[in-house]
């Protein structure tokens, strides 16, 4: 598969702060790639370096196989000469232009013939369900519609890649979920490669083909969503992606593919683990990987339960440790009740 974006050893320093620290990745044709991380992790700066809005202090960027940024060679193609589409967090829809004018602006700059401008603008309006709103001004549109105008403007020239900077964060929850599907559909229809920047792990997991998790300017893990969810590379990723219980423990015995650990409550648990680990470590357990019952396992105290629709989440106490566990409907526990839990799957971090 052909690569659409390649980033090599990209760094960006602000004063003495390394906002982006030696970041490398590539995005292939038809791929939905997400940069995921907490605010200030450097994901937006990386995106802006790719767009040419920010000058990196080291590294290279290729778009569609063309070198557009190279600090070492002194190459810096300005943003208007890069074949990209971009949607900004606040949409940046020009308030003094109509929907049509906004969307057709890139085509006009590209000096497309009038017929083509009209035809392609109409096509985009159609695709984004904006038909009939072409003559309106942005102030007369809802947030979701403005978002679509921004998308249309980014897509109208059929760019190599689409850069999305937290495009859904200003929408309300319902609309956000709907737009997730629409973005995914859009990608299916156009086959465009998408670089998506977000701090919302659910969003990244739901839409991406591949995710790169960033923290402190560094890509800490890169992979398919389910890989990252199931095998987080370190404690940060484990904590950032999904819900995770962390328990201090002591490794006491190592077999080939499992380790016996002693929790602070004194209980001993078997955890699947490749390799050797000893001494103090951290046991990470997802709420859905714990089975709560009245029959067997570690003795625990139910503290509080929250009904969440398809399952109920309880907070239970094992010794001094608090754990969040999920049970499907069926078994109901009362606060104060003594129950038993089994850890089906866990991860160990040194």
């Amino acid at each position, binding site marked *: 598969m052909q690569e659409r974006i390649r980033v090599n050893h990209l760094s960006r320093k602000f004063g003495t702060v390394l906002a982006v620290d030696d970041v490398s990745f590539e995005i292939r044709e038809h791929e939905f790639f997400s940069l995921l991380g907490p605010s200030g992790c450097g994901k937006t700066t990386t995106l802006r370096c790719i*767009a040419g809005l920010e000058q990196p202090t080291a590294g290279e960027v290729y778009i569609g196989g063309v*070198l557009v940024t*190279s600090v070492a060679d002194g190459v*810096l193609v300005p*943003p*208007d000469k890069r074949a990209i589409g971009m949607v900004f*967090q606040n949409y*940046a829809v020009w308030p003094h232009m109509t929907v049509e004018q906004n969307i057709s602006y890139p085509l006009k700059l*590209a000096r497309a013939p009038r017929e083509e401008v009209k035809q392609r603008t109409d096509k985009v309006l159609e695709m984004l369900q904006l038909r009939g709103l072409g003559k309106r001004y942005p102030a007369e549109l809802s947030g979701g519609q403005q978002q679509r105008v921004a998308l249309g403007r980014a897509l109208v020239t059929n760019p190599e890649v689409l850069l999305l900077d937290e495009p859904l964060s200003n929408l309300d929850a319902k609309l956000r979920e709907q737009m997730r599907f629409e973005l995914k559909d859009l990608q299916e229809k156009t086959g465009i490669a998408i670089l998506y920047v977000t701090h919302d792990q659910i969003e990244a997991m739901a839409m991406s083909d591949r995710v790169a998790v960033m923290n402190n300017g560094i890509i800490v893990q890169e992979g398919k969503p389910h890989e990252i969810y199931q095998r987080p590379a370190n404690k940060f990723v484990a904590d950032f992606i999904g819900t995770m219980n962390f328990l201090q423990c002591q490794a006491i015995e190592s077999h080939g593919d499992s380790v016996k650990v002693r929790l602070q409550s004194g209980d001993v648990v078997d955890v699947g683990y490749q390799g050797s680990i000893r001494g103090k470590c951290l046991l990470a357990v997802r709420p859905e990987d714990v089975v709560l019952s009245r029959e067997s396992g570690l003795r625990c105290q139910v503290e509080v339960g929250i009904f969440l629709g398809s399952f109920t989440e309880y907070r239970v106490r094992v010794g001094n440790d608090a754990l969040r566990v999920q049970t499907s409907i069926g078994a109901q526990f009362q606060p104060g009740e003594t129950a038993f839990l089994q850890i089906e799957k866990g991860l160990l971090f040194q």
Partner: protein
Amino acid sequence: MDVTSARRAWLPRRYALDVRHALLLITGLFFFVIILYPLGHVLYRSLVSNGLLSLANYRAVFLTPANYRALWNSIWVSTCSTVIAMAVGTLLALLVVRTDIPCKSFLKILLLLPYGIPPFIGAIAWTQLFGPAGYISKLYTALTGAGQVPWNVYSPGGVVLVLAVYQFPVVFITVSGALGRIDTTLEEAARIAGAGLVRTMWDITVPLVTPAILAGSLLAFVGCISNFGIPALLGFRSRFFVLTTRIYSALSIPNIPLATAMSVVLTGVSAAALVFQRRLEKGQQKYTLIAGKSVNPQTINLRGWRMPVLMATISIAFFLSVTPIVSMLITSVLNYWGAPLSLASMTLDHYKYIARLDMVRRAFANSLFLGIASATITMAVGTFVSYMSVRGKLRSAAILDLLGTVPYALPCTVIAIAMILTWSRGPVVLYGTIWVMLAAYLVRYMPFSIRTTNATLKQVHPSLEEAARVSGAGWLQGMRDVVLPLTKPGLIAGWILVFMPAFRELTMSILLWSQGTETIGVAIYNMQDAGYTQIAAALSTIVLLVILAGNILVRRLSRGRIGL
């Protein structure tokens, strides 16, 4: 991929950056020649006596009775006016913003009116009302049968009161702004804690706006102490001098070293007040800044007092704002000064007369030229500097931005003296020409333009421009299609906001004018000074009309955000 072709693509951009740097350098030089060098000159000259570095000039300021008395007069007159302005401005702001008084927006416009009137024109109007043969003085003697009025407008007291009239709107603006920005939940929390409305206002609201009250008062103080027109028109007759008028007479002797030393003292006092004011403003943001919420705050219910309070406020506002204008208008169409007020004694002769006067025509042409030139140049330079510092985030531009706003702390008198010193000798002699006046105007209005262009540019989110760039627009194209259309109303409003005060400027012009370079301000002042009350009134009326038109235009353009 061929690396060399990509490198070529990079080159034009680097070149473009260099053009911007060159422009910044030129602007820097311009600021140096027009601002820094003249100011340095004033300071240097104040420290030189008989060719030697000494403090002799300052000794003259602080030890010669006529001089230190002027300094003392400046301080007490400004303090008294400020206290009055503070009390009146704060009270009216609380009344208008925080009670259920009707006709709020009308009251606001009425109370802000004096702010738009040139103080020296205001002073002339108040002499027409309260002077020996003034309308109100005559009314008083007719009603009481007394031989003469118990007041004298040409006195320190007159100076204090008229200054207060033209400075209280400053306090009113700052305090009502702060009252509108208060986080209303702070007050609501006090209500829930059990405090009544009045108690809440006293315990929560007033302490929260105290920094704003002080900041507004300090601005008013600076306005008072650097004002020339009012103490000149009301103080000269009784030989009552303040610093600005004393500098004016020192210059006409001429005793330039003394004038420069007094200028430095005046600058010191006003700059200290401004530094203090900036601190208060910054400190205030800490707890009253709220994120764009505009909740209607609870207002005190005046109940039965509503109408009486409204009537009282309207009468005060009318008296302070409208009567001077009406008096000006009447005087300008009266047959002769002191004629009975009847339709029979109305005439347009004064207007016809001034239309024929060469000096007046020159003054209009000069003021028009100075207004247009200074507004255009300051806005062009200001837009460029603001753009480079707000968007380009260039440190050199940020320094220029700061340098350009420094003259804000300089009283006009001081700017004029700096211009005289710099341009009356040396390689380029501009003194006596209109160019020295233009230079002074540019220094004076640069801070205004930089402030408005800064604010205007900040309203356009950077991503709007970046969106144009990723859509394929170059820097210039993005400017043309996105930045300029979005900032145009603000920039035009800013232009008018420089043009209007420049058009009627007095303080600098009176020190810099010579035969042929009279401005309208100078013409009005000289006519009034020479006793041609009605010519001065006719000219003032025309100026007021221009200001009115300008304000309406600005309000339209900024949709009510800027202007009166």
